[in-house]
């Protein structure tokens, strides 16, 4: 696990995107810097109660998260944070997760 989620900042126009692109969707520049976003606000939550093709599935939550000056992320929620809450973001093997701020 690592703190923050890596997003990609276009060196040409500064827009941040996630996931990584080949060209910037705004200016079509080809160079990006990696940047970290550490928190975001939950806009919607979905409780995943069933996974097709899998048995013994344990319900879990995903959330749509608005990051400050950054892209919208879909994250796995690791606690009971609700819609409107500001959460801290972290990565596990390249995938974004979030939990309530301490």
């Amino acid at each position, binding site marked *: 696990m690592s703190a923050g989620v890596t997003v990609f900042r276009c060196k040409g126009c500064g827009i941040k995107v996630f*996931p990584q692109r080949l060209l910037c969707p705004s200016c079509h520049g080809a160079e990006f810097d990696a940047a970290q976003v550490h928190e975001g606000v939950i806009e919607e*939550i*979905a409780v995943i109660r*069933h996974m097709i*093709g899998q048995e013994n599935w344990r319900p879990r939550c995903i*959330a749509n998260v608005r990051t400050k000056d950054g892209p919208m992320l879909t994250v796995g929620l690791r606690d009971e944070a609700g819609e409107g809450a500001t959460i801290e973001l972290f990565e596990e093997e390249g*995938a974004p997760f979030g939990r309530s701020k301490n």
Partner: protein
Amino acid sequence: MHQAAIIGVGQSAYTRRPASGQSTHTFIRDAVVAALRDAAIDARDVQGMAVASFSLAPDTAVDLAWKLGLSLRWLLQDTNGGSSAMNMLGHALRGVESGAADIILVIGGDATGLAGYGKIAANYNIATRDHLAPLGHGGPNGVYALVASRQMRKYGLAKSDYGHIAVAQRAWAAKNPFAVYRVPLSMEEYLEAPMVADPLSRYDCVPVVAGAQAIVIARPDRAPRGRAAVCVRAHRTSFNYDNQAGDGLQTGISTFASEFWQSAGVAPRDIDVASVYDDYPSMVLAQLDDLGLIPDHDLARFCRRDIGEARRPINTWGGMLSAGQPGGPAGGLNAISEAVLQLQGRAGERQVANARLAVATGYGMTMYRYGGTAAAAILERGE
């Protein structure tokens, strides 16, 4: 330039669980045989073929042509999921119009099984594999649960508003012998169904089935004697319309709707029957709204009045929600096929009286936060 039209449609049986010996290929064979029979076309006269399938691999289109015994001069394999059917229709029309091929088969079919579908859903693209599947996102159900929550909040929708779509489509499916779910569904049953991915419950989520569809494109005068061909007044597509930077409550249809109607020379009020890609009720509403078919963008009123009171014939074969989704490509082809049957007066018990104009859509490829492809066509009964 030649004219081009849809002259025949056909489908395989649909089933939730394929039997031993059934495969994507055998369902496709059954649909092709049915479509050629319907169009009264000899297989030896087919010069072109388009196919889309999530489960044809490792075979490709040319392998399918080989196994169907078709020697071709026009071939296409499409990868746009829920808008593949509409995309292939456009290419096939132009293929006939240009003289590249006289008769083109357009095919979609899948028999993934539930476990196979789960693998496809988790590996849909690199973004899904790397950034969504590790969350346990539930495949497209999870993605569209988030979209539905946004839509409910923005438009003041109640859960029962989606229910009107599911209930109405089930009533249509009761009249479709190919539909996998034909028992009438009540609003009470809809509301009491178990949650799958809140706020989506069982009847909001398209059931995966095995099956295939095919249509035949040719000059209108190749239609069977006594039957009107179905012509396409307008056809538009959209790919990656917003780089996934919006809210997903509009689809790519919004990028072309105005010019689409203008090109067709008709207006939304002229449409007699609509086939709208329905992997989820929320996306039916999004596409209808993009098309301008929802007055005042009042989605809730449209659900309660136009659909709840059966004022608008939408997805008259039951839609994928009740007939089943044999993969997005075949699901989209079923939407087109139903529009054709309605316009030809061949829809049996579900026939909409005097249907002359239909709109059909496709929507698909959930790239990260919602679908990135969309397409639409206005179909008209030829004279």
